[in-house]
């Protein structure tokens, strides 16, 4: 298991164009970042293409890392998630049929997610648990699957504005809980 301090050092060396440090960084983190791309895009080929862009971006932008004040994994995950969402948003008009919507719904907080939550009770999970389950699910789906207000409203069968209000309130509650 690579520690955050080790990953931070690899990023710093990558900024100095140290290719072997970059290789070690790739080996230590590409599984997680590929998981993020797959979760957002739900398509293996696209996720592979985006993962490639992600590491090329990391190579070129490693010197920006310190500016954000992020922990190393936060920065890496943010780079991956943003590029994956960009790809998702440039897809042609969504052609999701009802089946796909149900598939996505099935990926909500099932027994597996619940097990992870109970095994590693991070502060975030505890705070998400304070939200009503379907609102916590909406926050997760917006982040992990890149769902839009429209997607979320359709899936939860509520009007668009209701979903907007729900999610905004949930985000503020989440922040309030995390900074408590």
């Amino acid at each position: 298991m690579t520690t955050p301090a080790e990953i931070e050092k690899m990023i710093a060396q990558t900024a100095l164009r140290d290719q072997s440090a970059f290789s070690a960084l790739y080996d230590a983190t590409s599984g997680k970042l590929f998981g993020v791309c797959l979760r957002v895009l739900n398509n293996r080929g696209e996720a592979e293409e985006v993962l490639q862009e992600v590491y090329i971006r990391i190579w070129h932008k490693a010197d920006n890392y310190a500016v954000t004040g992020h922990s190393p994994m936060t920065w890496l995950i943010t780079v991956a998630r943003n590029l994956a969402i960009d790809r998702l948003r440039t897809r042609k008009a969504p052609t999701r049929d009802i089946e796909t919507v149900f598939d996505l719904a099935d990926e909500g907080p099932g027994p597996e997610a619940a097990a992870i939550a109970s095994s590693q009770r991070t502060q975030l999970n505890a705070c998400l648990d304070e939200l009503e389950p379907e609102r916590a699910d909406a926050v997760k789906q917006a982040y992990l699957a890149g769902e839009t207000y429209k997607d979320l409203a359709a899936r939860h069968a509520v009007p668009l504005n209701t979903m907007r209000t729900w999610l905004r309130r949930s985000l503020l509650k989440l922040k309030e809980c995390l900074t408590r």
Partner: protein
Amino acid sequence: MTAPHDPNDDDILAAEYVLRLLDTAGHRQFEARLRDEPALRDLVHEWEARLAAIAASEVEEVAPPSTVKLAVFSAVAPETRETSSRRSWFTGLIGVAAAAAIAFVAIGPLLRDQVDLSPKFQTELASADGELVLVAGVIPAIHEIVIERVAGQAPEGRVLELWLIAEGSDAPISLGLLQTTGETRIRVADDIAPSVRSGTIAISEEPPGGSPTGMPTGQVLATGTFVDI
């Protein structure tokens, strides 16, 4: 022009920006403000950190195929070479390389009567465990890559395949299979030839007859970038 911002509004906007929930116009407006407002950038970073924790705890690791790493490293390799050699003889080299590239592309074929058949670029292809060592040289005048075997061979029942990943490209192009013994000469198609000098070449092990998919399917054993001889 507009009413003073409620701090809560900015916080929500930052969250929606991070989640990519803003419409195109809203997204652009927000990015324009980000350039001038450090406090807004801080809000964005705070939301990025809060929400990344969701991925940190909920997303399972999935090993990507080895071709992704190969493509990433081929894309970043030329820059590494440039940086490491810049201080010494790089300035001279780039002139020579540019001249060679021009000769390669433009006038090489015109000088058929006095073709220079000596290799001009070379690289070593060695596997990480040192078992397989090959040396590849390029004869620009005739667009040929000559691969000499120094040590090792393909794993039992497999063949070695040579690939080119052109600079800035992400898809390897198959250049052909290596002979099982001795030297292999591979003629590179004219349209690909100019990208050999700046690209990365790689050796993978494949089923007999070569990769069935047009992309490396076996393990990538070695990669290299050419340097001028």
